[in-house]
């Protein structure tokens, strides 16, 4: 069995080409390659070398169209047993090749050549070609003559010419030798035997038959030589004779041989073209159905006769089966066209079936190779792969390294059909295209990869093939191939491999890599699986904003337009939304998150992993990582962009198991997609317990020149700023330019919730320091006031303190800044404005619940005044004003009593762990200060109230300052319409406007009450209790703010107190049984004259208050009534009267006035509408203590 058999083989002259002496490997290949151009030598070209000594036996040699076909056997081959049967199997010529510079001694060359030639007894022509001879060698060689031929150094073309001539000469010599042989063969008794005959001839008795047989065989051999000589017509004639003789002598084997030869002759006759082989002719389309049928018919006969020649006795030793199979293959190759696939499949199937009976394993191997080749030609790749695998198995049976290498190579051919090919075998071109297309439409799957996912389901076959590759590579000593096979096996089929098997593969990987030089790259990734996790956008610290040079607020257009997160218009173009743009900056580190998975049962140690960047403008930083069995990890891979341009990151480069591989994200995406559809065995990430990820769209990444980079920190620590509600504090934010470009523009704004908690922003400070050079720093003071916690916040706060508060509710400072408009480093690009940046400085304010306000209510206090003696101070006169004056010192003059003194009581509780001090201050209006001379207009210094932790306290705020003291105060003039009635500008004011004015004045009042607190050293703030005060004041605002139209005062008249030596004891008291002169002072607080009818009631009471209480026990009562008094505006009227007390005890004096002709103002003040209703004014009760005389 021979490789590469075809019908044409019968017409080929075998020439052994043997290296003589020492020849470098590459040079030898070079020399060999020269022969390849010269396998058909046209007869027409050799005529000059041909001399016809006798009349040629090849009578019909086609000199014009014929050719000699050479088949070069590089390195020669040992003679086979079947050379007599088929002359084309003989080595008919030997050409030695030697390299003159390395073999200077021609004698030794000749000697060696002669020795070599002895091994080829069948050789008719021997030549020895010497390349690159020196002059001396040329000379020497000329003397020696013989078979030496020299090719002097020349250019390739000249050498080829020279070479061609030499080959033509050899062809001519061969032709002449063939003639000689034919002459001899016919005359002399050449015995032709085959291994098949050896034993049969012993038993042969019929001599005549044997002679005839010999004749037939000789004729067949002559026919063979005619074929070799390129004369099919002659060959045909001899074959006919041979066929006849063989048929007569039942020499089936030779009959079949002759028939085979005749087929070749037939085809040669038909296609007399020296340069084309038969199949090529067929493919050109010159096929001839009649001829084809004839060939087929004859081959069937050939096969039949080979079968017949099978002899049972020696079937163990030798068999014509291989010739039968060869005939099969020859026919198959001849017919090998798609249209005839059925026939060919049959032929090849029967050939394959016959393979089992072949004795020689090498024969079987050759047969399988040929079958595989033919199936491949036919387009039956799977079948071809199947037989290739058979070949590989046969190689592997041989158990030596060379065979293993062959097995490996053959298996490598099958990988495509089984879809397990190494990525190295997929051309780089398509690879790059795919990368490009992936970037173009990242969302879509590449069709090819989908198909490959489907095909990958033949896992049983694929694993077998990969295992065989691994085995043969290990045996062949090809660690890289072994590594690659193990990697493919592990990566694709880990779910089907037991943990023990996985460990074995891991060991195989490790072992292979030990034999590889460090830094070896392999195109097939092993583990881990790497997928893109996310492309982090710029952190808010270094966000990039497009810059609109035309506008002052150049950042404005880049902000998201509109208040909605979802805009229906953007949904229309899904491409746009999925295609995110990412801008990286030269020199600023970037990060990408990737997820690694190790679904196998061993510990995976990734020596290093880093981003693989094809665009070359990113310096990736490698990291190493350890993945425990069945685990996945998200890791951050970083790098620094080095130059401006686009960046594509197709995957990661991984150094694992000693070999460097590139893991493409696209592959894993496809795999995961396949897993999602159930097409692939398993999702490595899910099997590691990692959740499913949505497809990550790869943004278009471009790198831009350096930009300024502001870095902020809060002076004193970047932690949360913890403030109690209402606390006011200054913080200092330091901004430093960490970039390499100065900041030339900067602007601060606020964003987020609770923006009003930022009380002041230092715009000017920032403007002042521009441009901020690289490395420079500026400190910005910002004043904060903590906001009030809402109910929700309170709930949260009570749950887990401060954990979640800061994120959602804190305001942020937005600082938009940019470098210079033009880029200094790259002036031509100046037209493109470099983008600006945005720095978000989140003010991490954590508001703690501080003092909490529980409730506020208004208290009114009535302390009856004593009708006193002539007190030294004339305070009685200036009633309301003196009250104000007193407050600051003594709060309330108990003796004087107070009427309608109102307090706002605030109940505060302190739920915190701190102690708070409350500092109440009431601010007086500056317009009011003439009434409070000597007072600081700003504050009243109430003593501080301290509230301990978890306690509550009440704070009283006296409201009396707000009562209108007199009616000409401009403050009241301004604010109170009722008092402005005197201006008669607005005499018909309405109730409505009263209310409005009231409201305004209440607000005014409230705004002047400040409750400040202080806690510890540095916490201070203000309670926001405006609403509470407002609510508390709502009902009685008028009483608080407006004075009564009339105020009363009683006084003892002093002049008759002559006897009072024990004054000190009896101070402020009245003696019984004495006429007690008294005065009542009625003050008119309005701007108009009031006439009234005054009554004075004096009651002797047991209770405190005899006026209002119905249950009070009135012991005595007397009334002075009908006193008509007129009080001029803003003045007092005095009415003197005397009382005579009979019984010592406590008495109460009350004055009541009925105002006559009350005007609207008074009515409004009295809250009455009806004009008929009398308007009463009543004084507070005054106490009179009457002491007995004894």
């Amino acid at each position, binding site marked *: 069995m021979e490789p590469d058999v075809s019908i044409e083989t019968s017409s080929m002259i075998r020439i052994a080409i043997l290296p003589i002496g020492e020849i470098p490997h590459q040079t030898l290949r070079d020399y060999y390659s020269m022969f390849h151009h010269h396998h058909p030598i046209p007869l027409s070209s050799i005529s000059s070398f041909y001399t016809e000594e006798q009349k040629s036996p090849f009578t019909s040699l086609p000199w014009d169209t014929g050719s000699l076909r050479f088949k070069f056997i590089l390195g020669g081959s040992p003679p086979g047993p079947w050379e007599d049967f088929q002359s084309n199997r003989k080595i008919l010529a030997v050409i030695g090749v030697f390299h003159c510079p390395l073999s200077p001694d021609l004698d030794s060359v000749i000697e060696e050549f002669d020795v070599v030639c002895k091994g080829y007894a069948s050789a008719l022509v021997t030549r020895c070609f010497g390349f690159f001879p020196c002059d001396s060698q040329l000379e020497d060689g000329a003397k020696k003559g013989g078979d030496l031929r020299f090719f002097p150094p020349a250019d390739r073309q000249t050498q080829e010419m020279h070479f061609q001539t030499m080959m033509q000469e050899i062809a001519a010599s061969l032709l002449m030798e063939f003639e000689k042989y034919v002459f001899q063969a016919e005359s002399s008794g050449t015995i032709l035997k085959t291994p098949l005959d050896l034993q049969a001839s012993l038993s042969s008795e019929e001599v005549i038959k044997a002679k005839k047989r010999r004749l037939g065989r000789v004729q067949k051999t002559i026919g063979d030589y005619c074929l070799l000589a390129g004369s099919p017509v002659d060959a045909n004639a001899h074959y006919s004779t041979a066929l006849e003789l063989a048929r007569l002598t039942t020499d089936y084997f030779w009959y079949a041989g002759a028939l085979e030869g005749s087929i070749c002759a037939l085809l040669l006759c038909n296609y007399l073209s020296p340069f084309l082989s038969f199949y090529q002719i067929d493919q050109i389309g010159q096929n001839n159905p009649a001829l084809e049928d004839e060939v087929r018919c004859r081959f069937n006969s050939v096969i039949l006769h080979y079968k017949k020649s099978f002899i049972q006795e020696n079937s163990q030793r030798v068999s014509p089966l291989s010739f039968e199979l060869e005939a099969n293959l020859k026919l198959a190759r001849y017919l090998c066209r798609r249209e005839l696939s059925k026939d060919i499949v049959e032929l090849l199937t029967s050939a394959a079936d016959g393979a089992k009976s072949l004795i020689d394993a090498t024969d079987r191997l050759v047969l399988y190779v040929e079958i595989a080749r033919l199936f491949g030609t036919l387009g039956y790749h*799977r079948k071809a792969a199947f037989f290739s695998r058979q070949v590989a198995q046969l190689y592997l049976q041989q158990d030596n390294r060379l065979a293993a290498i062959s097995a490996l190579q053959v298996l490598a051919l099958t990988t495509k059909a089984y879809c397990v090919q190494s990525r190295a075998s997929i051309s780089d071109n398509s690879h790059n295209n795919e990368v490009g297309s992936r970037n173009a439409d990242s969302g879509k799957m590449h069709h090819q990869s989908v198909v490959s996912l489907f095909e990958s389901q033949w896992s049983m076959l694929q694993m077998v093939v990969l295992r065989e590759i691994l085995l043969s590579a290990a045996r062949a000593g090809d660690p890289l191939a072994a590594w690659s096979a193990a990697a493919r096996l592990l990566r694709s089929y880990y779910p089907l491999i037991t943990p023990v098997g996985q460990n074995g593969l891991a060991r195989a990987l490790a072992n292979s890599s030990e034999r590889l030089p460090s830094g070896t790259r392999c195109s097939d990734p092993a583990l881990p699986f790497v997928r893109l996790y996310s492309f982090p956008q710029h952190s808010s610290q270094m966000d990039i904003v497009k810059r609109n040079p035309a506008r002052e607020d150049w950042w404005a257009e880049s902000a998201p337009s509109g208040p909605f997160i979802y805009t229906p218009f953007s949904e229309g173009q899904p491409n746009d939304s999925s295609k995110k743009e990412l801008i990286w900056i030269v020199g600023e580190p970037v990060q990408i998150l990737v997820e690694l998975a190790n679904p196998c049962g061993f510990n995976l140690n990734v020596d290093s992993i880093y981003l693989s960047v094809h665009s070359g403008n990113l310096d990736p930083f490698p990291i190493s990582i350890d993945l425990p069995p069945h685990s996945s990890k998200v890791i951050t891979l970083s790098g620094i962009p080095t130059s401006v341009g686009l960046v594509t990151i197709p995957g990661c480069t991984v150094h694992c198991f000693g070999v460097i591989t590139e893991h493409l994200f696209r592959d894993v995406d496809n795999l995961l997609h396949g897993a999602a*559809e*159930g097409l692939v065995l398993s999702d490595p990430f899910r099997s590691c317990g990692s959740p499913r990820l949505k497809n990550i769209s790869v943004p278009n990444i471009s790198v831009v020149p350096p930009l300024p980079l502001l870095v902020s920190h809060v002076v004193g620590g970047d932690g949360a700023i913890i403030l109690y509600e209402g606390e006011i504090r200054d913080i200092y934010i330091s901004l430093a330019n960490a970039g390499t470009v100065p900041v030339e523009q900067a602007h601060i704004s606020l964003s987020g919730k609770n923006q009003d908690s930022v009380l002041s922003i230092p715009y000017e400070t920032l403007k002042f320091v521009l441009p901020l050079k690289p490395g420079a720093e500026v400190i910005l003071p910002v004043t904060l006031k903590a906001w009030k916690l809402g109910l929700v916040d309170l709930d949260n706060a009570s749950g887990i303190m401060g954990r979640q508060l800061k994120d959602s509710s804190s305001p942020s400072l937005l600082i938009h800044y940019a470098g210079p408009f033009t880029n200094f480093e790259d002036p031509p690009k100046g037209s493109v404005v470099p983008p600006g940046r945005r720095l978000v400085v989140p003010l991490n304010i954590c508001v703690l619940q501080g003092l909490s306000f529980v409730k506020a209510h208004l208290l009114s206090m009535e302390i009856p005044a004593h009708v006193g003696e002539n007190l030294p101070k004339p305070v009685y006169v200036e009633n309301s004003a003196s009250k104000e004056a007193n407050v600051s010192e003594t709060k309330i003059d108990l003796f004087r009593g107070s009427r309608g003194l109102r307090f706002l009581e605030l109940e505060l509780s302190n739920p915190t762990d701190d102690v708070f001090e409350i500092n109440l201050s009431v601010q007086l209006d500056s317009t009011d200060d003439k009434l409070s001379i000597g007072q600081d207009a700003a504050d009243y210094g109430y003593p501080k109230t301290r509230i301990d932790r978890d306690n509550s306290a009440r704070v009283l705020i006296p409201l009396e300052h707000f009562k209108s003291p007199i009616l000409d105060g401009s403050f009241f003039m301004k604010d109170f319409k009722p008092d402005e009635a005197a201006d008669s500008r607005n005499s018909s004011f309405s109730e409505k406007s009263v209310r409005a004015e009231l409201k305004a004045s209440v607000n005014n009042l409230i705004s002047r009450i400040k409750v400040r607190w202080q806690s510890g050293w540095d916490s201070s703030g203000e309670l926001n209790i405006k609403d509470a005060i407002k609510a508390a004041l709502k009902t009685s605002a008028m009483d608080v703010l407006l004075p009564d139209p009339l105020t009363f005062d009683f006084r003892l008249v002093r002049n008759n107190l002559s006897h009072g030596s024990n004054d000190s004891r009896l101070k402020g008291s009245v003696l019984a049984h004495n006429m007690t002169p008294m005065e009542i002072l009625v003050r008119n607080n309005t701007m108009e004259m009031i006439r009234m009818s005054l009554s004075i009631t004096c009651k002797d009471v047991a209770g405190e208050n005899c006026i209002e209480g119905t249950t009070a026990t009135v012991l005595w009562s007397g009334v002075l009534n009908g006193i008509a008094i007129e009080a001029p505006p803003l003045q007092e009227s005095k009415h003197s009267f005397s009382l005579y007390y009979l019984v010592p005890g406590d008495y109460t004096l009350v004055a009541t006035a009925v105002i006559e002709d009350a005007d609207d103002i008074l009515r409004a003040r009295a809250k009455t509408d009806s004009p008929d209703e009398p308007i009463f004014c009543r004084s507070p009760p005054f106490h009179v203590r009457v002491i007995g005389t004894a």
Partner: protein
Amino acid sequence: MIVCVAVVGHQNNPLYIQSFTEADDALKLHHIVHCSLDVVDERVNNPKKSGLTLNETFLGLLYPTENYKVYGYLTNTKVKFILVTTDLDVRDADVRNLRYGIAKFFRRFHAAYVDAVSNPFHVPGKRITSRTFAERVSNIVKSFGLSSAG
């Protein structure tokens, strides 16, 4: 005797392969089924030359190999059914007989397949894992063995 039946998807992905022999020859049968796709592909790609008309789903004998004969059947959705049998001397007329031949077997097999993929939980393109389908197929194979024997 039927030794193996297979369903192969339109991307030449195996959907179902079941052998009916006791011997451990799954790999061999996989190979046979895999190789038969060459022939199916060829017939699909050159329907005229192989004499296949569009309506004909039964592809007939795909190829003989060693001790087996491989028959094929192609649905309109390019799903292939492959049958590997050891009955080497079956006449073509018997094969195409719709009452008891292999063509009949394929019809029934096709019906079983259609029912299997009509399951709303079946993912097209995924391997058929339905036990009902497996049982039904093995019934069809058994009954075929009986009818062809009888």
